[in-house]
């Protein structure tokens, strides 16, 4: 006999976990779709965001939420400045540009992780918040922890904003044109460097912001990034490479699969189930779970 209360709470957990994944997957998918950069440093942006939340919150009255706009702007700037370097190693006549970008961001990730470890030590750090404590209990259904609900909502909201930007503004059209064909976009007079920097800045800002939320939900520590890098990859593969709308579906599917497996089968087999899921999707639908992914899908 299935315990309805347990099932509902498990589904809620899965949906909210999926929302957390969405908040990371948006930027990653954007970077891949527009810049064709498989960014191994994605988890490190999450870690840096969480660390920024932990370090800056005391100056904002121990309220991690207030740090969020600052983190977004700061990391937008960081991404904007870093992108030309990535562009430099992934363009020109270099062989295997995708691999070059991958190696560059891999090195960046190791450098960032090591630097944070050296500067701040290996301790876990708390990102405090009084605004996002507690949760809403709905009798017979379960608890919706405020911080997880807000994180999921922000992830979906961010996706909606980027979709609007991409499909309803001149800047978005320029970015889509770059994703479609860089050479033609340049011939049309689009300032490629500028829009690529904007896209990468948005990605870095979004991912670091997701990091603050993840710090609020879990904790901040220098080694946390690897896990989120792995999940970002899972996300974009399931979504269909570079296909932004697929990010919501893949995030929810991954969250639900993880949650239901842990509760109804065994916590030990969660990763096995996730990998199996991805293999099956790739075999059945190489273009992602909605069948619409692929090159330049954003």
């Amino acid at each position: 006999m299935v315990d309805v209360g347990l099932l509902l709470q498990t589904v809620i957990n899965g949906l909210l976990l999926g929302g957390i994944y969405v908040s990371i997957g948006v930027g990653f998918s954007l970077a891949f779709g527009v810049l064709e950069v498989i960014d191994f440093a994605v988890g490190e942006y999450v870690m840096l965001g969480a660390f920024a939340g932990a370090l800056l919150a005391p100056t904002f009255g121990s309220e991690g939420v207030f740090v969020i706009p600052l983190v977004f702007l700061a990391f937008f700037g960081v991404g904007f400045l870093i992108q030309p370097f990535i562009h430099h190693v992934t363009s020109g006549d270099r062989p295997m540009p995708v691999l070059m970008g991958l190696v560059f961001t891999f090195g960046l990730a190791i450098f960032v992780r090591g630097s944070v470890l050296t500067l701040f030590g290996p301790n876990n750090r708390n990102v405090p918040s009084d605004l996002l404590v507690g949760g809403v209990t709905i009798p017979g259904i379960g608890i919706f922890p405020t911080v997880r609900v807000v994180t999921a909502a922000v992830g979906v909201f961010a996706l909606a904003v980027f979709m609007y930007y991409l499909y309803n503004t001149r800047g978005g059209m320029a970015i889509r044109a770059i994703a479609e064909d860089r050479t033609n976009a340049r011939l049309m007079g689009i300032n490629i460097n500028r829009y690529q920097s904007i896209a990468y800045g948005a990605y870095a800002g979004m991912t670091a912001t997701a990091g603050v939320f993840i710090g609020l939900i879990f904790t901040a520590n220098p080694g946390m990034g690897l896990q989120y890098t792995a999940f970002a990859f899972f996300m974009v593969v399931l979504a269909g490479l570079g296909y932004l709308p697929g990010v919501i579906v893949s995030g929810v599917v991954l969250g639900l699969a993880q949650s239901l497996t842990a509760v109804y089968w065994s916590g030990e087999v969660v990763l096995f189930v996730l990998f199996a899921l991805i293999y099956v999707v790739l075999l059945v639908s190489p273009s992602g779970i909605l069948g619409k992914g692929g090159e330049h899908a954003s």
Partner: protein
Amino acid sequence: MRGNGETTRSSETNSATGRRDFLRAVGGVGVAGATTGYLGARQGRDNFKLGVVTSLSGELRFGGQVTRRGYELWKQAVNEQGGIQVGGSSHQVELVYADAQSSPSTGADAASRMISQQNVDAVLGPYSSNVTLAVVPIMEKNRMPHITGSAESPQIWQQQPKYTFGTIPTVSIIADQAATNILNLDPQAESVYITGVNEPFSKSTAQAMRTAAQNADVEVLGYELFPRGTDYANVVTQAKNAGPDLHFHGGHIGSHVNLVNAAQQLDYNPNGMMFHYGVNTDSYKDGAGNGAAYTFGATVWLPQVERSGGTLFETPQAYVEASRSTFDTAPDYTQAGSTAAGIVFGEAFKQLGASPPLNQQQKDELVSILEGIEVETFYGTVSFDNEGEYYHNNTQTSPLAIQLDQDGSPVIVGSEGGSEPTYPVPSWSER
């Protein structure tokens, strides 16, 4: 600037020759380095050189740094006192590090490389049991005296390793005794939910907690192991659904923090939660924030508990002060156990009476000395079992059940002379 008489070459030839020269230069430096290393290994030295294998990077780097601090404090204290006295001479201590990167296979490779290249006299062991389990066979193969100041899995001692010793009692003793104390708090628990991370130390911890519950006739409502990095919302949902009086968890600090945070978010309120390792560390308290208060835990050493003292650090308090002045942090029992491992080696070197570097026969004699040694330290009396399931493990140091108070300070509970616990603990909203 080119020198006189240099032949002018085309840029292509120049570039090719430049690469060859560069490769020759690199090769030359490599050969010179290797030769120097080899000769260095062969030549005499007058200091005791110990290898340290620990996790300086990767997921277990927090614990790796804890062990490093423990070993470094021993080295610092010994060297400040002039070194280890052997006969009429004194010999300074040198530590060389190999990073296990939190991975058993990397740890084994690093240990093997260090032993073959560094000509160490002995080895101070890794942080974490899973790395130690991979390193122990390397020590056996190389007949290298090895003391771990950290590893707690009983599997290490069940293998009856000849060359490996450990200063911290196995977790099946610590977790069992501390859990028994907490299970018998008033009102006595009728049920417990037990979770753990699926790795050697954490699994052994969870198993020991389950044994303690079964021995105390407390119903185990759930027992499950999870991979590292799991989302503890699911763990908490299952546990909350079961409604236990107590929740016990075996893992490292990161998993404790995530479990507590998930319990807060989902309003899971058992009468008490117990994690074996690390509740009185800054990493746990910083990570869990206000959720850390009232957590139960286990330890084998606290500064306020009087221990035999003596060698190098007169009292536990003196050791705390040394740690604070050197590393600006308070030590936990793993750090203390690591320093004690160094102290034991120091006393064994003295008893051996041989000057460094040690040859294989002297290393074998050192192992015989360790088997019979008894050293009074700030951490307690250290001596190693020579038979049974805890072969070469120091089982002398008594485990303590602790609880963090409202301010995060650990107080001893549930044993003779212990303080009154806050039990059942307040709900999350009342903390």
